[in-house]
């Protein structure tokens, strides 16, 4: 399967995009963790997909996440253009993502420190609400815009019966969505929630869905179209 089939038609040239430097903030999901174990799920895959896009477009990028395991290094190079920084928020170890909000000041300080060692970003991209809060603050401090990806909203979770949320979540979310330059969501239900419950301007919302990895599109073939050997159980 060719690169074009995976990415579709990209409209802007690589040389133009190489001047855009992105800092991607997602505190609760480490892209190095596999989806399907522990807290690893769609968000982890989403970060990997964005990283593929940045590499493809020649965009320098820095991923910032929380260091959740002592075995994970504080810094890793992901590619020639991509770096991953794991910042220390609270003690190193598992932490419920709903508690990250209570570490907001520490989070902002750590991200500022990390960015200062990296480069001057041109845009911030936050994923999930507590990362959005940090991005909004840093955006304000540095005078650069931020875009935000929602991935589940507090209002919908509440009416579905989840009661494990921070009491300030709804208000923080409203501010984060309201001040983001653009808001990405993944399905129509979420878009509707953002407009009706959070008062986000419809023209600012983009439904981006999710891409699908090549093994699902052509499960019997490898990237070159050759029948592949199936390696279930050998990883």
């Amino acid at each position: 399967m060719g690169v074009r089939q995976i990415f579709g038609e990209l409209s802007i040239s690589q040389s133009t995009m190489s001047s855009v430097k992105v800092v991607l903030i997602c505190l609760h999901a480490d892209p190095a963790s596999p989806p399907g174990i522990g807290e690893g799920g769609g968000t982890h895959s989403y970060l990997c997909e964005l990283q593929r896009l940045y590499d493809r477009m020649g965009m320098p990028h820095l991923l910032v996440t929380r260091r959740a395991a002592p075995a994970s290094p504080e810094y890793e190079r992901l590619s020639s253009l991509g770096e991953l920084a794991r910042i220390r928020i609270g003690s190193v170890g598992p932490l419920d993502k709903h508690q990250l909000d209570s570490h907001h000041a520490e989070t902002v300080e750590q991200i500022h420190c990390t960015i200062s060692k990296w480069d001057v970003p041109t845009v911030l991209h936050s994923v999930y609400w507590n990362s959005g809060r940090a991005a909004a603050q840093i955006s304000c401090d540095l005078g650069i815009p931020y875009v935000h990806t929602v991935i589940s909203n507090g209002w919908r979770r509440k009416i579905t019966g989840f009661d494990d949320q921070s009491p300030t979540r709804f208000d923080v979310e409203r501010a984060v969505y309201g001040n983001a330059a653009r808001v990405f969501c993944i399905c129509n239900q979420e878009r509707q929630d953002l407009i009706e419950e959070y008062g986000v301007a419809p023209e600012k919302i983009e439904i981006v869905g999710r891409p699908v990895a090549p093994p699902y599109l052509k499960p019997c073939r490898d990237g070159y179209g050759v029948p592949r050997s199936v390696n279930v159980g050998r990883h």
Partner: protein
Amino acid sequence: MDSNHLPTNGELVHDAAFWWNVGVYMYVGRMGGNKGIEHMLTAWLDLRKQYGETCPDLWIVGGSPGEIDTVRQQVTFYESLFTLERQGHIRWWGYLDAKGVGALLLKALVLVMHSSYEPGGRVVLEAMSQGVPVIGTPHGFARDLVADGVNGFLVSYGDAEALSHRMSHFISQPLLSPSLGYAAKETARAALASWNFFGRHQDAYMTFGLTGGPPESKALDEPLNLIKNPLPQGLIGRFPFKERLPMMQMRPVSSKPIAARLSTMATFRRCLRRAVPLSGKRTRKRAALPSNIPTRYLPVVLSGTRPIPKRYIIL
């Protein structure tokens, strides 16, 4: 077998000629409490009681050994589950990567996703892309993409009886899965094309990364009072970016993006292919080496995986 009689799944199991056509019910995802795994197991056990050996097996993909064990111990019907596991009718595959899941989906009759809430639920999209119908709860992608009886079924969360009923369709109608699966694949293909995931992200970065964003994004006023905290004293005055620490020193020497460098190398390789053979007659067209290819790329290209035949020279 009577030629006018479509075999049921149970008959297929016992007929060696059709063993390859026997599918399974499949779940892919985390072992979280909101994923409805217990409801799914309840529905499957009902079917098992009803249809016996005719009932397709259940394959559950995801989770670490510890998480799987926790889920198994939480269900109230642990004993019957344990027996069926030993007989191989329920299989816990644990974590598999995309290649592994893609391979297992080739055997799936239908994907069961019974979460209480999903913002998206990417497994729905992955299964549909592979031509596997979905029985889902009305959230996220399932709500947007699954149409009852067209490419799968929608069932309310917690309704094990309705789930069992929908799952039973795939036992009594052996051609239902490929039929719904074909429609599912078309739906997924159309959805992926309309979303344009990479293109939309790229547009946003382009717009706001280069222009600095729309005016409203800079008006961080009243709503952000909740967010805006003053910077800690130790950090004020350190910005912008006074310290350059090892992270920057590890960047590549060339500032040129890797894709651009590869593009240059591709041009160079094309020139090599067009180089003139020493002993051949095709000596009229001579390909010139572009002057902008730095000499430091030569060793890289020459030591590449594709050897250059000796009878060619570079002109």
